[in-house]
C-alpha cells in the first residue's frame, strides 16, 4: 500500500535559480528600509519648516512598522518569501562589519563584563523558565525550548536545540511564536522604559543585549535608543550567542541521559557545529581595525555598510512578524514566555544598573 504512494519529486534548484528567487524579497527589504530612511528625514524637515516640535521617529522604527503593516494587513506574497528570509544573513554580515567600530581593547573590556553578566543572565533565565514551564504544566521539551530561547538567542537557539533534543515540530513552533511575539513587544517597550529611567547609552545597550532574545530584535531595540546603544547591544548579544553551543550541548546530554535524544559522541565537533561563526568574523574585523589595517575613512565606510545591512534586517523583522499566525499557536506558551520575559527584563535591568555602577559600562 505504502509503496504505491508517489512522493513529489522536486528537481533540485540550480544556484542561479536560487539566486533569482531571492531578488524580489531582497528588493522589498531594501525598498522598505530606504522608505524608512526617507520618512525619518522628510518628516523631520517638514516639522522643522513648520516650526513643529515632534518626537524624532527613527528609520529603524519606520522600517519595522512598514514591514509589520505589509505582513499583517496584506500578507506577504509567496514571491517575496525567499528573499525576505535573507534578513538573518544581512544581520550576521552587518555584525561582522560592525567589528570595524570596536577596537579589541573595547571588546576585551566590555566583552569581559558582558560575559559575566551573560553567565548570570543565562543561569537565571534557564532556571526561572524551567520553573515556570513546570508550574504551567507545559510539555518538558517545550519548556526546554522556551528556556533556551529566552536565555540564549531566541529562534536560532530554539532551532539548534530542537535538532539536538529531538523535540517535535509543534513544540518548536509554539516556542518560536512565543519568542517572536515577545521580541516584537520589546521593540516598543524597551526604548520607552530606557528613556523613562534615563539610562545611559551603554547601560541601555547592555540591557537590550541581555534581555531581548533575538539578535535582530536586540539590535533594533538598541538602535531605537541610540547608535551607541546599538553597538553595545550587539556586543552583549554576540557574547550571549557565543555560548549557544554549551547550553545546547548540556540539554542534549540531559535528554540523551533520559533516553529521549541521541547521545552526543563528539562534543568538540558538536560545539563547533553549533558555534555561531559570525562571532569569529566580528572578532577578526575588530582585530584588523585595531592593528590599523583600515584607514579612518575605510572604517567609516565599513560602519556604513554595516548600517545598510542592518536596515535590511529591520525591514525583515517587521515583515516576518505576523500576529495572526502567532495567535493560532495558543495562549499558554505565550503566557509562560510573557511572564518569564518580564521577570528576565526586570532582573537584567537590575543587573545592568548594578554593573554600570561597579564597572562604569
Amino acid at each position: 500500500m505504502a509503496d504505491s504512494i508517489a512522493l513529489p519529486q522536486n528537481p533540485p534548484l540550480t544556484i542561479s535559480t536560487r539566486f533569482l528567487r531571492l531578488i524580489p524579497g531582497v528588493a522589498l527589504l531594501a525598498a522598505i528600509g530606504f522608505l524608512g530612511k526617507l520618512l525619518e528625514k522628510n518628516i523631520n524637515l517638514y516639522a522643522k519648516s513648520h516650526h513643529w516640535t515632534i518626537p524624532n521617529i527613527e528609520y529603524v522604527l519606520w522600517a519595522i512598522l512598514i514591514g509589520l503593516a505589509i505582513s499583517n494587513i496584506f500578507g506577504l506574497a509567496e514571491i517575496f518569501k525567499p528573499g525576505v528570509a535573507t534578513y538573518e544573513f544581512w544581520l550576521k554580515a552587518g555584525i561582522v562589519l560592525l567589528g570595524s567600530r570596536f577596537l579589541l581593547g573595547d571588546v576585551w573590556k566590555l566583552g569581559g563584563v558582558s560575559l559575566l553578566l551573560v553567565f548570570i543572565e543565562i543561569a537565571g533565565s534557564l532556571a526561572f523558565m524551567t520553573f515556570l514551564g513546570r508550574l504551567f504544566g507545559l510539555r518538558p521539551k517545550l519548556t526546554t525550548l522556551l528556556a533556551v530561547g529566552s536565555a540564549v538567542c531566541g529562534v536560532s537557539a530554539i532551532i539548534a536545540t530542537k535538532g539536538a533534543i529531538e523535540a517535535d515540530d509543534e513544540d518548536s513552533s509554539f516556542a518560536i511564536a512565543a519568542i517572536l511575539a515577545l521580541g516584537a513587544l520589546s521593540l516598543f517597550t524597551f526604548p520607552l522604559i530606557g528613556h523613562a529611567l534615563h539610562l545611559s547609552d551603554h547601560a541601555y545597550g547592555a540591557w537590550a543585549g541581555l534581555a531581548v532574545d533575538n539578535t535582530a530584535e536586540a539590535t533594533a531595540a538598541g538602535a531605537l535608543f541610540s547608535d551607541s546603544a546599538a553597538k553595545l547591544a550587539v556586543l552583549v548579544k554576540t557574547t550571549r550567542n557565543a555560548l549557544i553551543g554549551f547550553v545546547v550541548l548540556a540539554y542534549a546530554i540531559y535528554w540523551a541521559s533520559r533516553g529521549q535524544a541521541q547521545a552526543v559522541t563528539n562534543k568538540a565537533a558538536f560545539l563547533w557545529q553549533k558555534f555561531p561563526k559570525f562571532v569569529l568574523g566580528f572578532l577578526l574585523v575588530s582585530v584588523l581595525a585595531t592593528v590599523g589595517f583600515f584607514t579612518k575613512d575605510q572604517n567609516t565606510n565599513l560602519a556604513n555598510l554595516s548600517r545598510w545591512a542592518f536596515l535590511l534586517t529591520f525591514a525583515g523583522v517587521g515583515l516576518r512578524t505576523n500576529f495572526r499566525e502567532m495567535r493560532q499557536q495558543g495562549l499558554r506558551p505565550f503566557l509562560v514566555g510573557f511572564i518569564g520575559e518580564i521577570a528576565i527584563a526586570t532582573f537584567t535591568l537590575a543587573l545592568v544598573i548594578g554593573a554600570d555602577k561597579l564597572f562604569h559600562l
Partner: protein
Amino acid sequence: MSNANSQPEPKSTQRFSLDSWAVMIALAAAILVRAGIIHRIPW
C-alpha cells in the same frame, strides 16, 4: 512499514551555513573597501 523511512536522505547541496556565507561576504566587502575598489559608502 512506511516507505518514508526507507527513502535515501537527499544530500545537502549547501556546503556552507548561512553564518559562514555571511562571514565570507562581509570579509569580501571589507577587502574591497581596503583595496580601494569601493571608495565611499554613503549613509
